[in-house]
């Protein structure tokens, strides 16, 4: 018995999750056991995994061959810096979500809690294995298991037709994407036909095949990540799922696609072409813009967050594309900068988006409402959720000193270097992209203010909201964990960058640790201090200093008398909750400015209506331009072929007869 490597411990932890699930399913109805023992245990495993992964990132590559899988292609697993980083992301996020879920379970909802527990933990294990897999077969198995388990989690409320539809769409797109990935592996394995990643690394395919492999991978992983135009499942599936699952999918599962894409483009493929980067960058930009615009006009809080996930994925892919560009022009240091921004944003998004989704979960439990038009004023009823959600909102809006800002800052910094590229058009084009990114960031702020303001502030728009109750203890712990993550990642960027260093060294052969850590922990200066610098600590510190100072001064020198009165509101006598802006109203400027993006159907009341009603539905045009036509084509094909199945035996005999004759003639001639 050789002593256990780090990798083995990681595997054991992942399988531990599986074991938890199996225990859960063997007591399907024991709610207390599942929610008070199993899920907290899962959270602990998450922490353990995160720690192991952290040490794995620096420990160097480790490989193992499991006695599973195909006879001549057993499961290969491998723990290197890249997979370590994403495992850390998985573990850290899962810890928060699991502990939250422990408190989230209620009696008699959807499928049996034991089954939920099993599926949830299979989901976690499969994601871990996706990041560990080191051969095509193991990867595909883990990948599809991930899709499958998440599908069952999404459809746990399967009595509603739209949820079934969402699940169907999700699994379909996931499956088609998986086919793309499989093909990409096939191309990379090439004539060698060996599907271990090692073989793919050694076997260098030539000519246009790398491009084909890259594009296939982009298709496959893009389908999972929700890139345009394959995003269609995402805004359906996330609202349909129970909130912890949406958090897990949006926070972690989308990142597995990023992981796969990174693995393929930097690890498995040898050379990168610069236009791959541009392609990725433009697709990412389109996705981000699309996502943020749609998130700004949503009226369902979870759809809003789902579209915001699309936006963030878009930003991540922009950074990814930039990395590719720099790498292909042999500028490793800049590539490292862009890649750091990308990975950093992955981590940030994992934290703040799952935090926000969990908050919507609490709101959903407290009010039973997802529709923004029926919420509001929850800050008085559920302060914990509100304030923690505020952290998530600020982070997701990319505001200093929280984590969202750091990654956007790094991204914009890396864009400032593109003018040095040896390619005429690019150094013209890319700064403009930076402008678009600025626009997207600002729009994200808009969407987030809408989300937070409409849900938590103002007057409650419904009676029942006054019965809303705050999140339970375990739920609070989960939320606190994630919120703390948002803050700490924002305050100590240098630590994170130093942590990312091995990953960037692995992928692009350079890192930021030295430059970043040369100015002490409090100052982030990725290149040099007079080039660009940002110190969230001072930033936060001074705000945290000035605010109480001002408060103290004011209270010290002026009397603090305060009267509660009805709102003034320019002296309007009557004020109802209906008079404040609805979600539709808040989105109206966006709808107006970006009208070309939408397929909009409105219903205006005419002056003579007895009960005038106004209705405006904004839909995704791609659904009509792309997906329905494909469906029609397939349907046409089926009608054509079904005509063969006539039911007339004479015809059937004729088929065989003609087949026989044709074959005879062919063989003879």
């Amino acid at each position, binding site marked *: 018995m050789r002593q256990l490597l780090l990798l083995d411990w990681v595997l054991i932890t992942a399988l531990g999750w599986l074991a938890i699930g199996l225990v859960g399913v063997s007591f399907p109805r024991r709610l207390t056991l599942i929610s008070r023992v199993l899920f907290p245990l899962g959270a602990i495993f998450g922490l353990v995994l995160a720690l192991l992964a952290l040490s794995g990132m620096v420990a160097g590559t480790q490989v193992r061959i499991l006695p599973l899988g195909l006879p001549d292609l057993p499961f290969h697993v491998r723990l290197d810096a890249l997979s370590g980083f994403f495992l850390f992301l998985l573990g850290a996020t899962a810890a928060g979500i699991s502990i939250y879920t422990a408190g989230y379970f209620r009696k008699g909802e959807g499928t049996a809690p034991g089954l939920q527990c099993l599926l949830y933990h299979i989901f976690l294990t499969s994601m871990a294995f996706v990041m560990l897999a080191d051969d095509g077969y193991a990867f595909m198995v883990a990948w599809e298991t991930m899709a499958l388990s998440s599908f069952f989690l999404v459809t746990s409320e399967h009595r509603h037709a739209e949820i079934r539809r969402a699940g169907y769409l999700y699994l379909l797109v996931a499956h088609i994407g998986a086919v793309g990935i499989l093909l990409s592996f096939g191309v990379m394995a090439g004539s060698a036909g060996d599907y271990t990643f090692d073989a793919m690394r050694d076997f260098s395919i030539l000519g246009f095949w790398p491009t084909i492999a890259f594009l296939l991978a982009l298709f496959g992983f893009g389908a999972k990540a929700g890139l345009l135009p394959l995003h269609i499942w995402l805004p359906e599936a996330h609202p349909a799922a129970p909130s912890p699952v949406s958090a897990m999918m949006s926070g972690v599962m989308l990142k597995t696609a990023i992981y796969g894409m990174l693995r393929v483009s930097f690890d498995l493929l040898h050379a990168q072409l610069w236009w791959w980067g541009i392609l990725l960058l433009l697709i990412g930009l389109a996705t981000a813009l699309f996502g943020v615009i749609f998130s700004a006009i949503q009226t369902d809080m979870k759809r809003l967050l789902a579209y915001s996930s699309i936006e963030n994925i878009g930003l991540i892919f922009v950074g990814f594309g930039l990395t590719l560009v720099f790498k292909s022009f042999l500028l490793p240091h800049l590539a490292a900068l862009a890649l750091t921004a990308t990975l950093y944003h992955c981590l940030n998004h994992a934290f703040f988006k799952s935090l926000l989704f969990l908050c919507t979960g609490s709101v959903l439990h407290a009010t039973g409402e997802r529709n923004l038009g029926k919420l509001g004023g929850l800050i008085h009823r559920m302060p914990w959720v509100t304030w923690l959600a505020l952290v998530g909102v600020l982070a997701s809006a990319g505001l200093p000193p929280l984590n969202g800002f750091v990654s956007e800052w790094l991204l914009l910094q890396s864009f400032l270097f593109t003018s040095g590229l040896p390619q005429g058009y690019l150094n013209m084009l890319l700064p403009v992209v930076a402008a678009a990114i600025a626009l997207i960031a600002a729009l994200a702020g808009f969407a987030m203010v809408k989300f937070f303001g409409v849900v938590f502030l103002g007057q409650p728009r419904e009676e029942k909201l006054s019965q809303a109750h705050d999140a339970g203890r375990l739920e609070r712990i989960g939320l606190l964990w994630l919120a703390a993550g948002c803050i700490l990642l924002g305050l100590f960027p240098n630590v994170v960058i130093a942590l990312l260093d091995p990953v960037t060294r692995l992928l692009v052969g350079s890192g930021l640790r030295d430059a970043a850590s040369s100015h002490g922990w409090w100052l982030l200066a990725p290149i040099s201090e007079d080039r660009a610098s940002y110190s969230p600590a001072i930033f936060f510190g001074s705000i945290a200093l000035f605010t109480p100072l001002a408060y103290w001064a004011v209270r010290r020198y002026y009397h603090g008398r305060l009267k509660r009165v009805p709102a003034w509101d320019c002296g309007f006598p009557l004020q109802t909750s209906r008079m404040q802006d609805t979600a539709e109203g808040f989105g109206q400027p966006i709808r107006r400015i970006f009208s070309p993006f939408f397929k909009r159907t409105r219903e205006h009341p005419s002056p003579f209506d007895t009960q005038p009603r106004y209705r405006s539905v904004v839909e995704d045009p791609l659904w009509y331009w792309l997906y329905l036509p494909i469906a029609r084509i397939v349907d046409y094909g089926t009608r054509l072929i079904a005509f063969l199945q*006539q*039911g*007339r035996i004479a015809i059937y005999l004729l088929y065989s007869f003609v087949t026989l004759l044709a074959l*005879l*003639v062919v063989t*003879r001639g």
Partner: protein
Amino acid sequence: MSPSLIHTIPLSGQVINLCAAIMLLLGFAMLSQRRVLTLINLFMLQGLVLFTSTLIVAITTHQNHLLWSAGLTLVLKVIALPYILHRLIRRLSVKWDVDTLLNIPTTMLVGIALVVIAFNVAQPISHLSGTITRATIGIALACVLLAFLMMITRSKAVPQVIAFLAMENGLFFAATSATYGMPMVVELGIALDVMVGMVILGVFFFQIRQQFDSLDIRHMERAKEQ
């Protein structure tokens, strides 16, 4: 084939060739036949021809097991099956005329085309045939194809079955005359299958009639993808 060739073939072989020709003729006759009763008789004749050819092969090549199979043919194809069929149509009182899905002349033309194809296909085989009877395999194939065509064109259950049996005949002919017969056990098996199949079909006819109150298979076109 040219006269010089004819003289090289021994008499028995010529007789077998003659039988083959008759088989083919009967095949065409069945193809063009409208009346069920005549169809059955033709089928019986075909069986008879098959029997004779088998007998001749058996005698000329001194293979005793072929005698058995000849006897089998006689019992099964000449006596038993026609008898059963006669009983059936009397019991079922099927309409005498058989209407076809394709009119007779066209069917004949197609049949001729089939014969050409069959001969063409069988040519290489017959060339390397070691037996005295070269062309028979082509004719057997032709018979099979003609029966197949007949199955397609007939719209009633009984003629279809007869066509099916005719196809069996063609196969038997190929087996015996072209290859001096298959091993006994196989032939027995085949015969058994045919027999059982006939019985099952007989049962079927009644049930079909009772369910669809006709034996017109055009009633049985429900199962399809609309």
